[in-house]
């Protein structure tokens, strides 16, 4: 996996961005249904990869990721609908970029708010707390009238297209890859593998956990913004626990910490429900069974490497 030359990364990124731009010129030739799926795949890749930063790279549990997505979605929608530009104005891309970044920043601020107090909690408890926060965010949005409350937020311009979505996918992958290969990034892996040993070599574990959380939240917010500006109508029920759970499934099935694995499973798990559209009522039953079976047979996911036994095994009475 480390076969790509890390020094050429920036070059690869520029090439990828150019490619995305090129492809997006042809997007109108594509069957709208397939186009929609491709966009959803891209958004899910960002969601799953951003959760992978928190879960897979830093080893923290987060079951409330949809909450960050929701914040990004609503925050970016508020910005872009507050500014009235003439149609096809040259400023549009900048407005969209600004809205997306604003959504990401709002989401990451929330990540900071949640992360700092909670990251000292142990595994199960952190999971429940993040779940709780995800729900609280949703309930708050549901009760805010200026955001449309339960009725939802309408009238969002459809800014998202292939270039924006896959451009951001490229940027995120570039970032994760670069992090993993740098000396700085090894701090994350050390924290994930063994916090006590990491502290013993001078790594500030809390700092790394918070950075992971905030970064993951930022990109979940970006994904939310992309989503909002594609579906043009959002409401709080789209960002509930089920959504968080779907993202968790993508990361777990792909293999926590594996960049490629998570991408592939995001692709598969976006296409699967569409393919099973006829059996919509069975979808969640199949999903949950799939999850149980994978956990029982191959918990490291499709591409996951090593699972750190020591880190999670909590024998009563273990000590340093």
């Amino acid at each position: 996996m480390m076969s790509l030359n890390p020094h050429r990364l920036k070059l690869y990124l520029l090439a990828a961005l150019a490619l995305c731009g090129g492809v997006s010129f042809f997007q109108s030739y594509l069957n709208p249904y397939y186009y929609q799926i491709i966009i959803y795949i891209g958004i899910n890749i960002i969601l799953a990869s951003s959760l992978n930063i928190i879960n897979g790279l830093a080893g923290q549990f987060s079951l409330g990721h949809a909450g960050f997505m929701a914040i990004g979605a609503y925050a970016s929608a508020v910005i872009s609908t507050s500014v009235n530009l003439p149609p096809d104005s040259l400023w549009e891309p900048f407005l969209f970029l600004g809205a997306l970044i604003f959504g990401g920043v709002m989401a990451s601020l929330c990540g900071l708010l949640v992360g700092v107090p909670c990251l000292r909690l142990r595994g199960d408890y952190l999971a429940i707390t993040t779940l709780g926060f995800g729900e609280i965010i949703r309930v708050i949005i549901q009760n805010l009238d200026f955001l449309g409350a339960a009725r939802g937020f309408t009238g969002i311009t459809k800014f998202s297209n292939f270039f924006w979505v896959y451009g951001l996918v490229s940027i995120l992958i570039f970032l994760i890859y670069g992090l993993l290969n740098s000396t700085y990034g090894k701090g994350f892996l050390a924290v994930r593998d063994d916090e006590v040993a990491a502290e013993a070599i001078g790594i500030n574990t809390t700092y790394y956990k918070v950075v992971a959380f905030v970064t993951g939240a930022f990109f979940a917010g970006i994904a939310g913004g992309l989503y909002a500006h594609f579906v043009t109508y959002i409401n709080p029920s789209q960002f509930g626990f089920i959504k968080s759970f779907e993202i968790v499934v993508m990361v777990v099935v792909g293999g926590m910490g594996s960049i490629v694995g998570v991408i592939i499973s995001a692709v598969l798990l976006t296409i699967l429900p569409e393919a099973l559209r006829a059996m919509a009522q069975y979808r969640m039953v199949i999903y949950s069974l799939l999850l149980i079976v994978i956990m029982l047979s191959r918990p490291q996911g499709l591409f996951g490497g090593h699972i750190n036994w020591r880190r999670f095994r909590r024998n009563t009475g273990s000590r340093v």
Partner: protein
Amino acid sequence: MPILSLTNCTIQFGGVVAVSDFSLAVEADALAGLIGPNGAGKTTIFNLITGVYHPLSGRIVFDGKDIGAKKPYQIANLGIARTFQNIRLFPSLTVYETIQAAFRKHLHCGFIQAITRPPGVQRQEREINEMILETLDFFGLADTRDKPALSLAYGIQRRIEIVRALATGPRLLLLDEPAAGLNPSEKADLMALIEAIRVQYKCAVLLIEHDMRVVMGICRQIAVLDHGVKIAIGSPAEIQNNPEVIKAYLGESA
């Protein structure tokens, strides 16, 4: 001027007093040993020094600074490194990456720079790479560089853990039972390694050990702990003849 001094440190867990009124001074060039029967509190003292536990009372001063209330990573950055009784390597990292993680403190960059990789950061990364390769070479680990650390033989894992600790550039190295699980020839290598480290890295070494041949062989000074209390301190010869020490290990003779 001792580089580390503990003064009257006490810590208890629930109703059990693990360490009581413990004092110790370690010189900057010391090679000292901490011995005692099982459960005496030796690892607890290591944990006190490295900040995993905080003493209920007493002071811990390192390099002139009071470290009694500091967090483990802060203490590590001040210059105390350690190994663990049960080897704690990073399961998903290769040997190279393990040492790289330890060299993290030589990299001066924040999150944004880590992502954008300006030329300054790239240069530092190159320098760190040099340092890692040099270190691996010095300790005979060059050919295992890209292997997962946990896939190697136990003796080599122990060595990696020590090298990882050294990579942080410590002034004091704490070794917790470094000879456990090693065969006699590996133990001899270990003893030579510790001596070499002291010379090359100019750091003090404090080790916990059960193997008396290792302790008596390399330590200049030994402190003996029993039930959380220091019962003796002195040179290997003095310790071997100390009746309190003999009583603690072997019990009263009839």
